[in-house]
């Protein structure tokens, strides 16, 4: 009978760290990795509640999240590489072509 609160606190901590990482770091690769962190935090949440209800729906959803994270990482890294070929930079601050 462990209360779920602890797991939720954990998930929240990881989520917050991930958000801080996305908003704060200049390097886009770190940003992507922070996004992965966020997704993981969500996964933990899903798993906890899947265990609580006794169903596997949460886990199936988590599979999909992982699948999506993989696709996203692949495409995102491809974009980063293409951008690096053009502009020689991986800093988000210098990727401001779409400004007003």
């Amino acid at each position, binding site marked *: 009978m462990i209360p779920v609160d602890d797991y939720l606190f954990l998930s929240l901590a990881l989520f917050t760290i991930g*958000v801080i990482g*996305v*908003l*704060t770091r200049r390097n886009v690769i770190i*940003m992507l990795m922070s996004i992965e962190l966020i997704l993981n935090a969500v996964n933990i949440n899903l798993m906890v509640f899947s265990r609580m209800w006794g169903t596997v729906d949460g886990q199936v959803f988590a599979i999909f999240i992982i699948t999506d994270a993989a696709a996203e990482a692949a495409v995102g890294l491809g974009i980063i590489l293409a951008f690096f070929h053009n502009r020689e930079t991986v800093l*988000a*601050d210098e*990727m*401001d*072509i*779409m*400004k*007003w």
Partner: protein
Amino acid sequence: MNTPYFLEHIWLIPLFPLLTAAVMLFYGRKLANNIVSYLCAGSVFVSFIFSVGAFFQLVAMPQGERFFTKVLFEWVPAVPYHMFDGRLAQFVAGWEFQIDPLSAVMILVVTGVGFLIHVYSTGYMALEGGYYRFFGYLNLFMFAMLILVLANNFLMMFVGWEGVGTCSYLLIGFYFHRKSASDAGKKAFIVNRVGDAGFLLGIFLCSAVLGTVRFSDIGPALHAGNFQKGDPWLTAIALLLFVGAAGKSAQIPLYVWLPDAMEGPTPVSALIHAATMVTAGVYMVTRTNAIYQLAPKAMYVVALVGAITALFAATIGVVQNDIKKVLAYSTVSQLGYMFLACGVGAFTAGIFHLMTHAFFKGLLFLAAGSVIHALSGEQDMRKMGALSKRIPVTYWTMLIATLAIAGIFPFAGFVSKDLILGKAYEQDVLLWAIGYFTAGMTAFYMFRLVFMTFHGTSRVDHEVEHHIHESPKAMLVPLVILAGLSIVGGLVSWPEILGGNSHFVHFLEPVVGMAHQSRIEPLKGPSSRIGEINLMLMSEGLVVLGILFAWYLYIKRTELPAKIAKGLNGFYELVYHKYYVDELYDALFVNRAKDLGLALGWFDTNVINGVGVDGAGWLTRFVSRASMWWDTWIVDGSVKLGARIVWVLSLPVRLIQDGLVQSYMLFIVIGLIGFLGYYFYLAHHAVH
């Protein structure tokens, strides 16, 4: 009782020439000269036949009933108005023709002499351009003149009055490409107009004082109004009417147009400025004699003006060298005689002189035209001479006319002039003296004309000499007929003293004795100290002296006139230049009128154009500038304002879009915080 045919159809008399004038207007261009001649002269001939018919049918009636009116239609319907003395009257005027002895005489003279002149013109104008136009105008003139003399009221007479004035203008300026001719036409019309102003005022005053404009109603109106002799209103009316007569009949001071009118073709001078139009004034005064007879002061003015004009014009005529100018001044002088007659109460004498003057003056002009025609256009008498054998018919007819105008017994002029002088002597010896002396001068200058033209040595230009020829029959026959009339015309009113019957005088009695209180009887012999026979002898004596003097100067001692002229240099120049009257009028009136025109022109250019047109231009430019300002600042301004509002509103949004992904994500987080905050707040309160 059945009205006689010619009296009933009196209105046709003016109509025939009007119809042919209209035909000339519309089709004249396309018609051959013969057709024009036959049509136009023919219509006047038909009018003459009708006039003769009307005359005889009038004479057939008993003397007291010789008065007939034919109403054609009503022109001005009756309009009630108040006269000067407060009575109510109706102003009504219609196209109503009146036949009485006076108008019968007039239509005979007008159509008869008119017809002869039409025939003459077919010869004289044969080679001129605008043949149909000439005859059209001439016929139109006949129409207007006949309306004038057949009218029974002032309004209709005024229509004819103006009509003859217009035709005179048209015919004087017939050779319109000559500036002098068109100027003369204008001068005639304008001077006439001055007279017409007086005439119109006279008509208005007549309707205000007497309550009518119909001639036949004037007599009864005078009786009903109890007008005394010497009434100031009647004097005023008479003087104003005389102003009109002076304009039309070329008396001082409105005579200046008649000498200039010689610019027109010679038949025009003969018809209009000798026989008919210029006599309209005399006719009008005679027609309204009822008013004049009650205004003796006005009559004296008429007589005095007539006498002075006669003398004045005669002096100018003595020194003129153009044959037509001499005749023109002679006409002015003879018209003076006619007014002298009317002024002393001898209205019938005036009309009689009008008739005889039509014969011999018409003849004189036509003969002068024949001379000019023979000399290929030469009009200066200094370049004539010794023509009597070469153009005999012209010579003899002109001589007869000259004898008539001089007043040699027994020609027509003698009878009529004597009638006038006799009556003048009765009234005022001074007037008689002026007329007497002028008669002598008339004889002198007329024979001067004949001697210079036909006698003496030939001073004709060499080239002209070869072409001297007698005129065609069309021109000569009227000359002969008029010559005959000049001889026997006097018989119509042969004075009783010499055994005659004074038919003419008696014939016109009813017309002239119209005033109720007339003391002036139709002429019988003057009851004078000298006696009528003695007066006649005195006149004849002076006339013969005049002729002899002319013979002396122009045949016997031809170098004398030049010497006399040089001797009296200043005086000669004065008279030769017509006493500089034209120059005086120019300075006083003509140039002042032009100045007014120039002033108005200046006003138009600077004020009306300046203020109006330029002002309108300025206003337009101003409005367009204001509109542009409005457009730039207000209209464009509101558009720009809208744009600026959008810019201002979009500014923060624009600044947010910095192209940095992380800042976008920050906004997502902010939104998420807000979103969650709201829901947790709701959830919290739902639970609690």
